[in-house]
């Protein structure tokens, strides 16, 4: 019974963490991009001038985190003329739901022992979690395509069709990268993958996935950015060409749902990269009983502290990857549609297949795990 309650709490926690990361990404999008582009960003809205009182008038916290959501949720929600009301209302939530339920299978820590109970710091311990990831990403295609169709607007439809084609093309590349990772670790379970990334090679190098599968890392990074339709792959949104592409006829809460999908999917891609390639919640040189540092030093750490350190390490790594994705967004120009498709089909898919082949050879040649 208590496992059920703890599982429910962990699931809610993970979904909330996903949403909080989306909000952080939203803030980073406004102010971080301003920093990169040498401008100030949003800083006008203020409640009782808190920023000015603290001596930092350009933080823009109230503007981004309070004013924007309030504006989005209180706008009038209209449905365009001749559009299908049911599909128009269904599409944003069909886009957001698969992304949110994917957060529950990502492990954010090892087991934690409080009192007599041992909890697994992962909301849902599926044996086939890697397949679950691919399934939910596949379902996420529908929200985008129905959003474009249900707007009764040919430019939205164009954006929707292009977004759908892009997403299903890069799903294949993502699947191939995940296949290579599954072959390397020999399991589909994400918690097992994180656990087998503990330990060191040569006495000092942490056994992280990126040293074993660098090509799969690049493929998953590219495919993940393309799946979440971020620049340089954001032609479906096309902010200077198609205005908002498939989201153009949405306002208010529904557009907020679409925006959240964008940022939440970015956070999800960051979490996947951390889990597969950077050890998930593994702190380098930290074992269950303490730090075994390379020089031979040993620092004893209590077991609860070990688990908490793992959670903090996971959060820090995910934040770093979110910032990396934001940096990529504000640095690279947008791909043209045919360049995008060519990269997906003629670039990433053959690379992914070659990667799987080479991984298979190495696994058979060394006769076993990694």
């Amino acid at each position: 019974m208590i496992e059920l309650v703890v599982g429910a709490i962990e699931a809610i926690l993970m979904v909330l963490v996903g949403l909080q990361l989306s909000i952080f990404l939203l803030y980073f999008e406004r102010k971080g991009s301003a920093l990169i582009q040498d401008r100030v960003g949003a800083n006008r809205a203020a409640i009782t001038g808190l920023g000015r009182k603290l001596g930092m008038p350009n933080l823009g916290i109230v503007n981004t985190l309070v004013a924007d959501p309030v504006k989005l949720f209180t706008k009038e929600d209209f449905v365009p003329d001749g559009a299908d009301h049911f599909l128009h209302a269904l599409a944003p939530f069909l886009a957001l739901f698969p992304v949110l339920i994917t957060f529950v299978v990502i492990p954010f820590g090892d087991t934690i022992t409080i009192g007599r109970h041992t909890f697994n710091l992962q909301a849902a311990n599926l044996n086939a979690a890697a397949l679950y990831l691919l399934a939910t990403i596949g379902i996420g295609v529908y929200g985008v395509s129905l959003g474009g169709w249900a707007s009764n607007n040919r430019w939205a439809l164009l954006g929707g069709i292009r977004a759908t084609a892009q997403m299903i093309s890069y799903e294949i590349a993502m699947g191939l990268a995940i296949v290579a990772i599954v072959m390397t670790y020999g399991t589909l379970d994400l918690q097992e993958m994180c656990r087998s990334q503990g330990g060191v090679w040569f006495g000092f190098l942490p056994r992280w996935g990126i040293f074993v599968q660098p090509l799969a890392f690049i493929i998953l990074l590219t495919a993940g950015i393309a799946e979440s339709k971020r620049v340089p792959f954001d032609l479906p949104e096309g902010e200077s060409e198609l205005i908002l592409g498939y989201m153009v006829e949405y306002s208010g809460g529904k557009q907020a749902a679409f925006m959240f999908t964008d940022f939440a999917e970015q956070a999800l891609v960051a979490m996947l990269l951390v889990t597969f390639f950077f050890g998930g919640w593994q702190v380098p040189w930290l074992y269950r009983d303490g730090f075994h540092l390379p020089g031979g030093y040993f620092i004893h750490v209590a077991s609860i502290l070990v688990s908490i350190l793992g959670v903090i390490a996971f959060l820090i790594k995910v934040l770093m990857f979110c910032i990396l994705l934001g940096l990529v967004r504000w640095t690279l120009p947008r791909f043209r549609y045919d360049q995008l498709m060519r990269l997906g089909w003629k670039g990433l898919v053959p690379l992914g297949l070659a990667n799987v082949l080479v991984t298979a050879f190495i696994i058979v040649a060394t006769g076993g795990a990694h």
Partner: protein
Amino acid sequence: MPMGLFWFLAALSVLSALGVVLQRNPLHCLLSLVLTLLTIAVLFIGQDAVVVGFLQAIVYAGAIMVLFLFVIWLLNVPVETRPTGHLAFKFFGMIAVAALLAELAVFVLPPHLKVKYSGHPAGYGSIEALAQSLFSDYLIAFEITSILLLVAVIGAVALARRSSEIEIKERAQDAARVEKAA
């Protein structure tokens, strides 16, 4: 799986299947079909066929139905306004279906369906067990299926592409030659 969950899933799948055949807008039919496929995928997972259940969600509901969606858009299929088909089709269709259901009912009612359940072996439904079966007992079928997929891809591309100008000219020349000979 718990019986309550099974009844919920059974009701949901039957209702969405009815939605597929009864709705007039083809897009709504498609969405009902996606719901049916996902419900059936959950039923698979509930019976320990975990990998096949997820594959159903990935391949069927995630890829094949998107293909259907694209075709519905490309052809701009309208909402049905014409009354569908002859009355005779519906009448004899109903009789055929009733006969089919009666025959199936004879086979699924308990006196005929005596299969003893002896528990699942360890690792049932896992990807190792599936791979073991696929690559040892069913290897030939696996290879032939891969050739089948290749043939299907080539066939679909050959069917759906537009003829190039050379082919249109050749076809016009052939038609002119046939007319001259006639």
